[in-house]
């Protein structure tokens, strides 16, 4: 689905919601929930925190959708709310305290090879689905993922947001600029600094 078609579909669903069709909001949530949760997870580094944060974001969207002026695309508006909410979470004392605790029972759920959480048959246990990769390969890949996420977590909030939006969400520099509310030069600078810092961090970890 092209971006233009996607934008038109979003506007139609929002219009339906504003005239009283509550199920249109559900469809909007289903369209964006994975993207929002993924972005939240990369920003916070904690799955449960990311899901809770995503819930809060959609509640905000539900409450303020009637103020949406269609000046930008819905996805940009939603990403802006997401980034700001995640930044607030990262600044909150509760989150910082929570991050000091070591979680032993939860492993982030990802598509492909690993499931965990309340939806899996055995919560807290790994369930290898893809049998093509050997356990050693899976383990190595997961270690690399964990290292990369740890390196992302170590970035400053503003740099982290720019990097995640660019390198994980794949947004353009212009979109990132409108989401973060800054100019193109600033976006370039932030992404460059974030990548440079991340590269040095990863070299140190390796």
């Amino acid at each position, binding site marked *: 689905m092209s971006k233009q078609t996607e934008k038109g579909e979003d506007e139609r669903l929002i219009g339906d919601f504003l005239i009283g069709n509550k199920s249109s909001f*559900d469809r909007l*949530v*289903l369209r964006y*929930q*994975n993207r*929002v*949760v*993924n972005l939240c*997870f*990369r920003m916070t580094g904690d*799955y449960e925190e*990311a*899901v809770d944060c*995503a*819930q809060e974001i*959609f*509640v905000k969207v*539900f*409450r303020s959708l009637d103020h949406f002026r269609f000046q930008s695309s819905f996805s940009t508006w939603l990403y802006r709310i997401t980034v700001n909410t995640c930044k607030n979470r990262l600044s909150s004392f509760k989150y910082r305290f929570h991050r000091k605790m070591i979680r032993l029972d939860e492993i*982030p*759920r*990802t*598509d*492909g*090879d690993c499931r965990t*959480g*309340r*939806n899996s048959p055995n919560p807290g246990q790994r369930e290898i689905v893809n049998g093509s990769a050997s356990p050693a390969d899976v383990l190595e*890949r997961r270690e*690399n*993922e964990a290292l*990369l996420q740890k390196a992302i977590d170590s970035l400053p909030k503003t740099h982290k947001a720019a990097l995640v939006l*660019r*390198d*994980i969400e794949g947004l353009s*520099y212009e979109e990132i600029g409108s989401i973060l509310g800054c100019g193109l030069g600033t976006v*370039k600078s932030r*992404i*460059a600094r974030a*990548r*440079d810092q*991340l*590269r040095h961090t*990863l*070299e140190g970890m390796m």
Partner: protein
Amino acid sequence: MKCKEAKKLLSQYTDGILDPVVMGELKSHLGSCESCSKALEALLEMRRRFDLLPEVNAPDDFLQRLHERLDREPVVKRIVKKLFFPLGRKIPLELAAAVSMALVVILLLQALPLSRFKLTLPEETSPMERLPEEVRQAELSEKPPENTAVAPLRAEHEQKIEKARVSEKPREEPEKIIGEPGMSEIVPQKAPAIPEPESLEEPGLKVPAEAPHTTDVRIFLRLVQAEQEEKPEATTMAKKSISEQDMEYGSAREIELILALVNRYSGSVVNGESQDSITFEIPMASYAQFLEDLGKYGQYRLETLTGRIESTAGIEGSTETITVSIELTK
């Protein structure tokens, strides 16, 4: 192109957004600079790692949990609105803090007894506090009050008492305290009656209403040899419970009887039990009855009377005492 400049452009180079001219210069620099080539390789390796990162999806019950949260949210929001937006506007934090401080101050002021601070004012308490100490010194030295430095102060105090008595409602008690008709009598010379606590009220001196319950009368009884007064003995002597003939003046027997009388009225001896004088305190409530009973032992003449308040009236926990020194001469 220098390495420093080239490394700044590597990020944009991997995104392919560099100007073609700048990109050409960078490419030529990368061909000749091993350090920048390694940096580019590391950056591309990192980008490949990002591409391998799996997408984290929302849980299956995400929408259901969201609906539950949306249903619960209005209640929470309503409570928050009531607490922080009571007038439909957000109350500034400074205003809330000021109101809280004012409430705390009011509560503290209500909890503290302010009457305590009133009575410690010097102009209110100093005249009345000086007198008791000096009169007590006079009593301890057993000198006649007239011959001490206390006399002017006592005279001043007596004037105050007299003024208070004039201002109060005239009492119905007779000037003479008489036990029974024809019996021995106690005739006060100057101020026979102990003023009621209310009559001692002066500006700056507050006596609580319950003062009579805790007020004592201190009596200085001097047993001195005096001439027997002529009086009809035929009837009075018969009615006395104790005969005057048995009561040798200043004898141990007389002192013993007087002390027993003091004890009966819950009094207490203050100053010695010498042969010629006793000082003791009697509760104010039973003072009149005490004098009446004392009259049964003999005829005493009240020579001097001084009254004072020696207490910090109004302060919680203290006992108010009105001490009156009476010198009686038989």
